[in-house]
């Protein structure tokens, strides 16, 4: 008897996340496949989860596009601090 893989949606969706990036066992894959055939909600989750990965990566990347600048006063005072400290060495 192999290890029984839980058929709970909770466990299955966790397995699904793990299986996307790490190795899961043959039995786990099998349990996952069988469950997904039977469970529409988990199938939807699978689809959305895949999309979310893409969307999140995109979201982090686009925030890179808007460059922000430090204000001049801060920069000047920082440059001054560096000047005075490196002068002491």
């Amino acid at each position, binding site marked *: 008897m192999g290890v029984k893989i839980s058929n709970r949606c909770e466990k299955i969706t966790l397995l699904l996340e793990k299986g996307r990036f790490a190795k899961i066992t043959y039995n786990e894959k099998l349990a996952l496949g069988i469950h997904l055939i039977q469970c529409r909600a988990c199938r939807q989750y699978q689809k959305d989860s895949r999309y979310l990965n893409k969307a999140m990566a995109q979201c982090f990347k686009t925030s890179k596009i808007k460059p922000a600048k430090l204000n001049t006063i801060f920069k000047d005072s920082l440059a001054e601090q*560096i000047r005075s400290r490196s002068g002491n060495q």
Partner: protein
Amino acid sequence: MQNLETISTPISNRCSLEPQYWVERHADFMYNYALIRINDSDLAQDLVQETFLAALERTSTFEGRSSERTWLVSILKNKIFDVYRRRSSGLTIRMPAKTPSEVEDFFNPDDGRWNKTDQPVYMSFEENDPLREKEFNQVLEKCMLKLPELWLAVFRMKHIDDQSTQIICNELRVTPSNYWVIIHRAKLNLRACLQKNWN
């Protein structure tokens, strides 16, 4: 051949540090670097300052093998990891900074099936409408910011820096099994948040 040349290059010809130009050359870059990773402009500004001052203290450790910027960013990176750790300390996976119901209630505790209200239903994610896409990204960003800091840190490291699972686990001090639980829980919350706020 070229390797030999590099090795024999005198130290003075290697990359050297010029602190007097740091602010001018790197401050905005580093500010942005920090900002997209921690989402807090005041803190990002502080980190830039701390990085420069810390770098000044250890200019002797700079060996000139990398560029000045690479070296400064590596110091900044450590400070960002410190922030991740600080923000998430005391925030274990079983006790996220959310009410337990928000986290635990997706599944029926008895049979492990989806609760009726949390069952994933079809969402029209993938549309080729740039306007809708922009809207979607705004909702997604809002939903992401609602996640506990540790969870968000995991995704930041994963997606912004393409860090491996192992590095993320080490830096954030989470076990590999907790790592998957975090990803899972975060996705569940995110998905639910979108289902509520999108369409």
